[in-house]
């Protein structure tokens, strides 16, 4: 049986800054995960990834990242995505400091 599709967001790194960004519902790239479009339909998710990947002059390496759907928006289900969201944990100088 095919595995059930779990919620995802499209994420990438911004071409100029290298920063982690997320695709929003109105086609912007946002540094805030809370603003990302949550993709719950597999076909739609694939389409959004293809569209995003074509935007070569804005981003690098777009992919679908697993998320849990919570009241306050998407939340990472794996610690790697959590660190991508929050920035380095050795001291506050990454994203935590800027956002």
């Amino acid at each position, binding site marked *: 049986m095919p595995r059930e599709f779990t919620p995802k967001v499209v994420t990438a*790194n911004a*071409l*100029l*800054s*290298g*920063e*982690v960004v997320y695709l929003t519902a109105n086609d912007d790239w946002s540094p805030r995960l809370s603003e990302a479009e949550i993709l719950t339909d597999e076909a739609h998710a694939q389409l959004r990834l293809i569209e995003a990947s074509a935007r*070569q*002059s804005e981003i*690098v*390496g777009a992919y679908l990242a697993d998320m849990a759907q919570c009241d306050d928006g998407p939340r990472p*289900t*794996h*610690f*790697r995505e959590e*660190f*991508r969201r929050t*920035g*380095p*944990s*050795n*001291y506050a*100088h*990454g*994203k935590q400091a800027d956002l």
Partner: protein
Amino acid sequence: MYSYSDFDHAFVTERNRQFRQQVERRIDGSLTEDEFKPLRLMNGLYLQLHAYMLRVAIPYGTLSSRQMHRLADLAEQYDKGYGHFTTRQNIQYNWPELRDIPDMLDALAEVQMHAIQTSGNTIRNVTADHFAGAAADEVMDPRPVAELIRQWSTDHPEFQAMPRKFKIAVTGSANDRAVIKAHDIGLRLHEKDGVAGAEVVVGGGMGRTPMIGKTIADHVPMADLLPYLEAVVSVWNLLGRRDNKYKARIKITVHEHGIEDIRARVEEVYALIRPTFTGVDQTLYDTIKAQFAAPSFTKRPVSAFDDHYAKDPVFRAWADTNLHPHRAEGYAIAQISLKAHGETPGDATAEQMRVMADIARDFGHDELRISHEQNVVLPHVHKADLPAIHARLKAHGLATANIGLVSDIIACPGMDYCALATARSIPIAQQIATRFDELKLEHEIGELKIKISGCINACGHHHVGHIGILGLDRAGVENYQITLGGDHTETLALGERTGPGFSAEEIVPAIERLVGAYLDHRADRDETFLATYRRLGMAPFKTALYGEQTAKRSKAA
């Protein structure tokens, strides 16, 4: 110190000019990422978890104060005000923007530095003993040889697209401070019957399949060294497993073919190519050697040192821990720890870099070194100047007296920065250092090397740590595996796994139990952790980690 020739200047300038255009073309959309990636990697530019990372080579770890100042300027102007010194004698900038990279590379070129071959399947930055030219036990200065190899390998047409990256380390002392047996090629310089030459060790390495290098030649005279090295790299370039990147390193080639077979093939190639080396390399070597002439050491009384040593316990602790014997009378090698308790191992702020540069200029014959243990070295300082040096270091958080101790931890960037990581390394190092600082046991424990990597690539050298820690991903949770008994010196050994790993919350208490077991079991204060482990084996440490029952059960299994 080596000074660029006109050729070197022209070469680096041209490379930077090319890369500037490539960056522009990536930004204006004429290059895709697939086209751009190999070009940026050729210039040391990675894309990591949160940003780009620029890796700058510090050949054989040697820097002038002017160069260190420039590294500080880059950290301030283009990054977040700090840089990260690595085990491969590089500096990594964690936050540069793509547009700024060409300017950064030009700024580096002005002080004869670059990022060429700090990535990709080429011969990487050649590393060397960080006490080169200064250590009391040195037979030959390894830096001229390292520089010769750098010039030979940079842009060598045959070695730009090899099966995998290739790392060479050189030591000129019997005491190996360059970890030569864990490199693709390790060289130990020595004299035999009055002829200077090198023992050549091949096929060592860390990564997912750690191996100890084997001696392929006892003594290759200096005059024949480059052709011999070229033969070794050529043989591997042909035989190396291009079908599988995990099996591509020369360690696997040596393992699969056996050292005798490799030696025979190398000798065959060597005989063929030897005549093509006309001796120009030796003329060059002589020119390079002259540039590494020792500074003129002065004879002065050391009483200022002795007085201070007698009356200031903080200075005494620092001197006892961070100084190393120098070859010249009245001189010392001073190590500056980049491992202040709770800080990120290997990081230095722009201000700290400037302080170290200024000290080197004022008191240290203008020389600095970066050690593979992520610390900075002042290779030539007069003992009489040490109280003043110490005071300046202290004022800038650089006088931690912990070289070689439990908090002098090598940690790779791990998942706080690195795109390949499976777990974090830095916070674990921070917590261990902080914990042992609270316990005030460091100096009691004595020499103990903890080394941490955030994935099996082993950038943090965990295989050769007395205590090695490897961060892994166990079903979406950070998990840390411990190895014991590794040794990074001339008696190189790979650590052995203790058993199941520990969670992020459990790992620091686990390390504390290991160290506690050592303190309980050591014969006396002079028996180091490593010596105790070698005498008693794994058993008491396993019990400390897992308890009596588990230890017995896993022994039976």
